[in-house]
């Protein structure tokens, strides 16, 4: 259960910041065209609620698909790397590539390959979110106690048995950690992808920016953050439902 402190402290901070921004803007200290008052952002959001919600749904779907792709491809690669020393050595530098690639630089390339639309955005979300999945799952696979490996050897376990009964179950807490990090990154990747490929909240932000409509930019950013929180929350929730017993206190 969430404690009252953890529930109310962020809400109070939110209220203070919103009031402060409102005061700054209304008093004219910060010009409206640079810092629209929160009330105006809220009015914009409510006025075009349907459009914003549709955009948020698209972005969430794209980020979700990108995350799913990261989950499948990232875990697949991590498992291969944990099983084969050779593959591990071969793949390592390319895994780092995914971490360091400046998405904004290759996004135009993605548009050329996948066109303007959802596929490009999904691939963008995938590219920025796959690295933490690989790294965390691989770390979990490699951290298996040597004694347990010996136990499996003692009974002549096959590679497949060792993988399914030992390595993978052992790596599950790390998989959850990787996925949690990846969820936030997939959201960022999707928005950046939409900047170039259009559509969703990223498309809205880009369009509003060119019109100097900062109220619209803020409205979309607000929704994007909420969508990100929702994604991470969903990952946490499914982790708790599916792999609760891995996280029991005192497990060593």
């Amino acid at each position, binding site marked *: 259960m969430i404690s009252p402190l953890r529930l109310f402290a962020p809400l109070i901070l939110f209220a203070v910041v919103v009031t402060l921004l409102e005061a700054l803007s209304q008093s004219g200290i910060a010009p409206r065209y640079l810092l629209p008052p929160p009330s105006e952002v809220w009015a914009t959001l409510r006025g075009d609620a349907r459009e914003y919600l549709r955009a948020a749904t698209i972005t969430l779907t794209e980020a979700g698909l990108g995350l799913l792709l990261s989950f499948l491809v990232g875990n697949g690669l991590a498992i291969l790397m944990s099983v084969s020393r050779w593959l591990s050595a071969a793949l390592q530098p390319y895994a780092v590539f995914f971490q360091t690639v400046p998405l904004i630089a290759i996004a135009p390339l993605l548009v050329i390959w996948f066109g303007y639309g959802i596929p490009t955005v999904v691939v963008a979300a995938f590219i920025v979110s796959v690295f933490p999945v690989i790294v965390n799952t691989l770390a979990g696979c490699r951290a298996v106690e040597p*004694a347990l490996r010996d136990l499996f050897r003692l*009974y002549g376990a096959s590679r497949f048995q060792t993988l399914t*009964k030992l390595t993978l179950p052992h790596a599950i807490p790390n998989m959850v950690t990787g996925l949690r990090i990846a969820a936030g990154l997939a959201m960022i990747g999707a928005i950046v992808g939409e900047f170039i490929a259009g559509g969703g909240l990223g498309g809205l932000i880009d369009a509003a920016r060119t019109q100097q409509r900062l109220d619209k930019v803020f409205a979309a950013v607000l929704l994007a953050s909420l969508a990100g929180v929702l994604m991470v929350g969903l990952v946490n929730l499914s982790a708790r439902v599916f792999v609760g017993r891995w996280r029991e206190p005192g497990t060593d």
Partner: protein
Amino acid sequence: MNSHAAAIVFDQVEKDFRRTGKVIAGLDLEIHAGQFVALLGPSGSGKTTLLRLVAGLEQPTRGEVRVPDAARRNRGYVFQEAHLMPWRSVFANVALPLEILGRPREEIRAQVETSLALVGLESAGALLPHALSGGMKMRVSVARALVSKPSLLLLDEPFSALDEATRFRLATELRRIWLAAGMTVVFVTHSLAEAVFVADRAVVFSQRPLRILADLPIPLGAERPDRLRVSPAYAELLARVYEIVAETGDAHTRHAT
């Protein structure tokens, strides 16, 4: 004592590790089938390596380790710590060896229950390891090693992380299990008192590179009741072992080189 063919034999065994150098130098040792042997030595002397050679987890650099077929096919191993899988219930942890061996479900159920009963945990099957005390975890670990009904049981300082009372109790139980099942038991320990209490034979090793300092029978009878620990016969044997270790000087430094 059983026939020569059914013995575990170390024939001029040497073991070098690239990082730590020579661990075992020219070792000859014979362990007869059905014997309860304690291997005694200071920490870091290479006793674990010895046990791993018997288990087939290591290969000798030179010489030969001969293990009878029955023991090679079916051996149990208990590590220094319980090493249970935290996501598996007690039952599923004990069942693991049989699962790997691909035994049918009903057989697994029956044997896990038998094995849990042997260590006094018949009602703990549904618990997860984190709910267990250190002693209980070790019992589960012993049950896991016994579940395949091994003809050879290897134990590597299995009780060293437990408190004294639990250690005593588990040693007594191990003795009882051995009496009932009649397998060969090789019990590695650095506790002289534990070795003399639980085994029929104590082999005392030197500091690394490991060699034999003494090989003593422990004629204290098959049954080892708790009060044996305060009996004159036990005290006398223990004193002899202490003397041997003291005479050879370097032997019982507790710290690894």
